[in-house]
């Protein structure tokens, strides 16, 4: 029956065969959960490194002097809201509403880019105004590697979701993407053009798996934002 399903218009029927596993969980989803377990350990190692050195050198750097908590708080809020849009994309994908999924994916990407711009601005500000670099102090080393690794995760997520957005475009957009889309850098156009029109109903699973990754990266940010930014303000608040 599965081969019929690939050609049907019913998104649920397209996804059903993927669930025919020993556990009823799709293979890709299970592998993603295993990857996220592993990724927890990656971030765990980075966060511990940062916190250990904060404890060893409590006074060498006073981060609250240059942290812009309003800006970082705002971009954190945007990142969390992107998770909402991501959830809506997955929901639309499962309902077979491809146009809706594309709109929500674009929204997610846009919010992800706002977060990344915030980070670029923040790094720029720390380097130029506060003199905090990779080699200015251990704090600089651990701060940039930790938040930078998270930024790379967000950037990869944006790239991943962009690929699915491109895939979900109607087929006749391929030519436009390659030739007409002047606002996109040529290498991007070359990469995205072959993806256009590839989306099928069974790919709702792939969007969902990308969504798992996206939510995970957001959750990690909650931990990083708390451990790296918020706790620095505890003494100021009198704790």
């Amino acid at each position, binding site marked *: 029956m599965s081969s019929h399903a690939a050609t049907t218009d019913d998104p649920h029927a397209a996804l059903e065969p993927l669930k025919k596993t020993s556990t009823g969980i799709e293979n890709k989803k299970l592998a993603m959960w295993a990857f996220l377990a592993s990724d927890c350990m990656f971030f765990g190692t980075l966060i511990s490194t940062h916190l250990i050195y904060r404890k060893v050198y409590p006074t060498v750097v006073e981060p609250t002097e240059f942290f812009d908590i309003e800006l970082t708080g705002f971009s954190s809020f945007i990142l969390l809201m992107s998770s909402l849009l991501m959830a809506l994309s997955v929901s639309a994908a499962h309902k077979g509403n491809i146009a809706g999924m594309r709109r929500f994916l674009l929204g997610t990407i846009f919010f992800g880019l706002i977060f990344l711009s915030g980070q670029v601005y923040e790094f720029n500000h720390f380097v130029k105004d506060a003199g905090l670099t990779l080699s200015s*102090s251990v704090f600089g080393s651990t701060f940039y590697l930790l938040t930078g690794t998270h930024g790379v995760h967000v950037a990869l997520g944006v790239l991943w979701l962009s*690929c699915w957005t491109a895939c979900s475009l109607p087929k006749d957009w391929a030519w436009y993407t390659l030739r007409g889309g002047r606002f996109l850098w040529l290498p991007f156009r070359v990469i995205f053009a072959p993806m256009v029109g590839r989306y099928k109903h069974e790919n709702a699973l792939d969007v969902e798996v990308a969504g798992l990754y996206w939510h995970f990266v957001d959750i990690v940010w909650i931990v990083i934002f708390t451990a790296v930014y918020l706790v620095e303000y505890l003494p100021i608040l009198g704790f």
Partner: protein
Amino acid sequence: MSSTVETEHHAPAPAEPVRDGIWRRPLKNTGLVGFLTTVDHKKIGIGYALGALFFLLLGGIEALIIRAQLMYPEQELISARTYNQLFTMHGTTMIFLAVMPLSAAFFNYIMPLQIGARDVAFPRMNALGLWCFLLGGVILNLSWFFPGGAPAIGWFAYAPLTDRQYSPEMGTDFWIMGLQILGIASLVGAFNFITTIVNMRAPGLSMMRLPLFTWMTLITSFLIILAFPAITIALVELMFDRHFGTYFFNVEGGGKPILWQHLFWIFGHPEVYILILPAMGIISEILPVFSRKPLFGYPLIVFSGAVIGFLGFAVWSHHMFTTGLGVVATTAFAFLTMLIAIPTGVKIFNWIGTMWGGRIRFTTPMLFSVGFIWMFMMGGFTGIMHSSPPVDAQQQDTYFVVAHFHYVLIGGSIFALFAGMYYWFPKVSGRLMDDFVGKIVFYLMFIGFNLAFFPMHILGMTGMPRRTHTYKSEMGWDQSNFWSTVGAFILGIGILIFVIQMVYAFYKGGKAPKDPWDSRTLEWDTDSPPKEYNFAYTPVIHARDQVWEDKYGVEAKRMEKIAPGKHGIHMPDQSWWPLITSIGIFIACLGMVFHKQPVPLTAEAVFGLEIVIAGLVATFIGMAAWALEGPGGFHLHPDPAEYAGATPAPEDEHGHH
């Protein structure tokens, strides 16, 4: 969906697949192209095994040079620096390029057969693991050919020795990037195996019916995905220290070298269980077969394996007792370390219980397995001695520790892996290995190994330090070192005969039947060697030792077979992209090694991050094209004689791909 009329969709695969990527998918499954583009878990397993055996010989030669240097006191066969490079490369090669990939070879080849699967969950990702493993080995060993030569930092690479200041040469960078790419190989393999074992078991094969080797594959895979991130991040931090001026381990800027030790051993201790648990799985397969009894205490062995894996994350600091952790931490880690002796002991008693009262056949695999139990116990006993901090303080950095871990790694892992190779060779190659020659190999290895490593206990007790390229005659260590070297060469001769025997048997060995050992698990129910599709039918499992029950059990426990549907068996298509992606990763890693480093011929630093970026772009293109290409697939139609007596497939059977 109701049962509708068949459409063209179900017709056999066209000879030419649709052009679905940048180029047509490779179809030829023989020759070089067939190997480079393969997604067949069996070919990939053989690739892992051949690579691992090559590196086993390379690491063995390095060990023999080390032993030759130590044969007599105050020799200058090799310089102190070369000696340091040799023990670094020996350790790294044996752990990451010999024992781990040899285990991975069995995971790949045997595990899908044991669970009755057609392949692993992600066949192309499996190929990526193989190529990353081979290219990681290449990067590591390329270091010999560049100025400064191989790394001289030990396989543990303790900070601050690895700082640019103390190890300015590129050897250390080759080591860092080599380990990173090997980490990718292990991680993608582990995600794949977890998904395969959890999700792709044959009908009726519940978790508590899984063969023990498959269980240990699962636990090892979990250890890999949870332990490797620690060293990956530690290596990234070290790379940043060396290339971008950070202070993670650099004392000058306030870095703490002790952090490296913690991160390294948080990975490093689970790593030793990553090396031994597959070995325990192999032993648990072989002992019941040659004792003609079911495995004694199956649930206990499974549970002990899981407990060992779990506790493995809670004992890393016993590698650091002499660093001054404080009383509480030292006590806690000593206690947890001693605790691990319990599940390990449970396993050993269960293995003995398996043999007890059995009609034992001492074939070569059985000899290696029994040798494993004894030798691993010896290593285990010295391990319990180390778990006591005051005793450990005496033994730290002496040959006693060298004796300990070679007993668990050679007497343990290597003996079990050899047992596995003798046991499964007929299945993999379709040829038999001569039992008499096999026994000669076993006795040579057994005697050589004990002669080489037993004296090291005494050398260590009398204070001979590790990692020192020579010793004074007055220390009274001459005799032991001499015999140790003799033993090492006997061990080497044993392994050499094994390799010759295997090559000979591959071409000239007698034809192996399906089930030459009168075995118990599912892999022995298919051909030797298995066909591309593993099983012509879908096995329906009713018992733990299914193949044994089929031969000797009651009717109710016999295996049922479901014939393939009329569209045949779905197989994944071959692909170039795993190889191309791994080459992209390889280029990026090489670029990182050459970042701001003198390049041979010019002797000037000419590269910034250009090569790294080029490599990452190649990696991205490889992955994007990989995704666009899709898993593909075609259908095979096995000879109906192969599934004679099977139930016809239900109407909507061939559902999942």
